[in-house]
């Protein structure tokens, strides 16, 4: 036990003497909790619209007015030449071209039907889709506004109406940030508690100091604990800071039990530390370790449902995510944080994480050798 004390003392000194690590500790939560939610937004805004008008009329002016006053659209150009509009799109300054054909107003007043041509840059498929739905809604509104002016019709009373009342549970304001923040917090844990200690161990390997430790009576268990504990402590300090930031800055207070959140985090940290150790045991150089680590960070993040819902993935990819501890944590974090799910609701995630923790820690202890 006293050996552990001396080793821990050393790890902490080294940690705080490192020119980068303490800074990272401060920088990371700020970056991830304060800045990332701004960037990570699925709301599509500022869609640039170019208008192609072959004839001007009060009606089209009204439509232009309507579009430019919408918070989703920016009107960049009103032109009479479709070619010019297309070149705007090619330059990237227009995302959407709305073309009003000749005789639009006449047809609309006479037949009650008007056609519009809408061309959308759909390279970003999601943006294209959402843009289309925004403009459809906007056009429907527009029609309602002008309908009375054009052709006052008696609303038929005989048509049965199904009233649809949506109620948004758990996140009534439908804020994407609310959805992202609990998940982003987990990224902190992943980086701090699994990959940093792994790199630390590999750096001792490269420096040769690990061999000096290996000829001492320090047991491998003590050594590993001494390596991990400081990062666990820092990890949880940063985790708590992140939770407080989430509360203060974003007004996000966990609906569920905070203890459950910490329980999840602890088990996850065990699992990922084990994973990090396994990597460190198999890599001889920092370069190698870092490359493997970055590969896994990216794959783990992308396949976790953090940015994109994992249920949208093809089935085979969903099976792969079954082996991703981060997926279980993020899912459970969002459930507890936003919905207030209890332990029994997230039992599946907990068991999965416990499984990962046991598997990786056992593997790590097995593969760490003081001698060969």
């Amino acid at each position, binding site marked *: 036990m006293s050996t552990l004390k001396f080793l821990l003392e050393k790890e902490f000194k080294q940690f705080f003497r490192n020119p980068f690590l303490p800074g990272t500790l401060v920088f990371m939560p700020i970056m991830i909790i304060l800045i990332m939610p701004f960037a990570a937004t699925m709301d599509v805004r500022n869609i640039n619209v170019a208008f192609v008008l072959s004839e001007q009329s009060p009606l089209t002016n009204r439509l232009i007015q309507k579009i430019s006053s919408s918070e989703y659209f920016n009107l960049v150009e009103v032109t009479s030449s479709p070619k010019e509009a297309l070149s705007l799109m090619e330059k990237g300054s227009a995302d959407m071209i709305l073309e009003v054909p000749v005789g639009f107003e006449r047809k609309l007043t006479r037949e009650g039907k008007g056609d519009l041509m809408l061309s959308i840059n759909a390279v970003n498929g999601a943006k294209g889709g959402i843009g289309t739905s925004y403009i459809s809604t906007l056009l429907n509104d527009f029609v309602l506004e002008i309908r009375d002016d054009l052709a006052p019709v008696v609303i038929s009373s005989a048509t049965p109406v199904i009233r649809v009342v949506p109620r948004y549970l758990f996140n009534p304001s439908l804020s994407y940030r609310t959805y992202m923040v609990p998940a982003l917090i987990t990224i902190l844990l992943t980086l701090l508690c699994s990959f940093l200690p792994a790199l630390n161990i590999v750096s001792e390997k490269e420096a040769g100091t690990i061999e000096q430790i290996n000829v001492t009576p320090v047991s491998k268990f003590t050594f590993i604990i001494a390596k991990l504990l400081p990062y666990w402590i820092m990890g949880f300090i940063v985790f708590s800071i992140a939770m407080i930031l989430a509360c203060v800055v974003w007004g996000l207070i966990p609906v569920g039990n905070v203890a459950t959140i910490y329980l999840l985090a602890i088990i996850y940290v065990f699992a990922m530390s084990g994973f990090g150790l396994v990597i460190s045991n198999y890599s001889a150089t920092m370069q190698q370790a870092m490359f493997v680590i970055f590969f896994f960070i990216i794959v783990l993040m992308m396949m976790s449902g953090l940015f994109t819902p994992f249920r949208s993935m093809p089935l085979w990819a969903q099976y792969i995510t079954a082996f991703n501890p981060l997926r279980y944590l993020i899912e459970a974090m969002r459930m507890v944080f936003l919905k207030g799910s209890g332990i029994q*609701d997230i039992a599946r995630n907990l068991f999965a994480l416990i499984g990962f923790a046991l598997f990786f820690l056992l593997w790590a202890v097995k593969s760490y050798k003081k001698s060969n």
Partner: protein
Amino acid sequence: MLILFGMPIVQIILFGFAVTTEVQNIRLAVLDPSNDQATTEIIRELQANTYFGPVMYVHTTEEANKAFLKNKADIVLTFEENFQENLLHTGTASIQLLVDGTDPNMCKILVGYVSNILTTYQQKFSVSDRTKTQIIPHVKMLYNPQTKSAYNFVPGVMGLIFMLICAMMTSISIVREKETGTMEVLLVSPIKPLYIVFAKMVPYFVLSCVNLTTILLLSVYVLGVPMSGNLGLLVAISMLFILVALAIGLLISTIVDTQVAAMLVSGMILMLPVILLSGMIYTIESMPVLLQYASHMIPAKWYIVCVKKVMIEGLGFSAVFHEVIILFSMAVALLTVSIKLFKDRLQ
């Protein structure tokens, strides 16, 4: 070494196929106390839609709540009692949609799906088709008619991979030589420092070109992303970007002294911003203005714009002239600064 070649392949395949923002496999639950002809018809309509998975039936509001808490349902359709009777006699009947709003994006999209289906259903009842003023938008999805996510991700992944391989690996390998002291050996040799730097960069440049080839082949033949523009232009721009990434790596290596620091700097400063601000996942235009300005600083953003324009939209050089100039000046600026710093350190 294997991982250097394997990584791009795995990433492009995984992300190209798997990372999609399309909403699918929606888990629909139904709370149907009336259980009459109208409600069964509506449920059948919903089930026929490919976006929805199998329908789950719940019988009480508590059960619905449980389903949400256990994350087993995304939406619960709650019919009022005597739905059909109300519909036929009073002319209105209501359905409450309880939606899991945690993921707002998915939530909005799926409310849209359900409303559409319900509106179509409702039109069956319409007694008269009295002329209703309508504006019909004819939508043309340019460049990506099927709105595939891969079109958007492939350029992003390309930017990410080059950044990772070139910037990170060069910086780490140079710093490694510094750490082990072999750098000094090279520096005292009669070789000019500039050549040493270039010698370090060349292998990663070659490696990146190999990766460029594999990525392009995979994108076109496996992911079905079109190669609409000029291949030569795309390759030229890619090489320019690779050069920028190498210069960044060089710059980092002159600033930091240890491999861990090199890794942290390239990780924190390059990776996350590249993922977030390059427009790979999130659209830049939707971000706050300040972040939009920040995104201008990121070379990957300009590269990704170029790739989209050339590869997918099939545009020529004139369309990407602006971006190429920016990338080019970034390359020149970064190289000058880092070589100057590198020389300064020698004296």
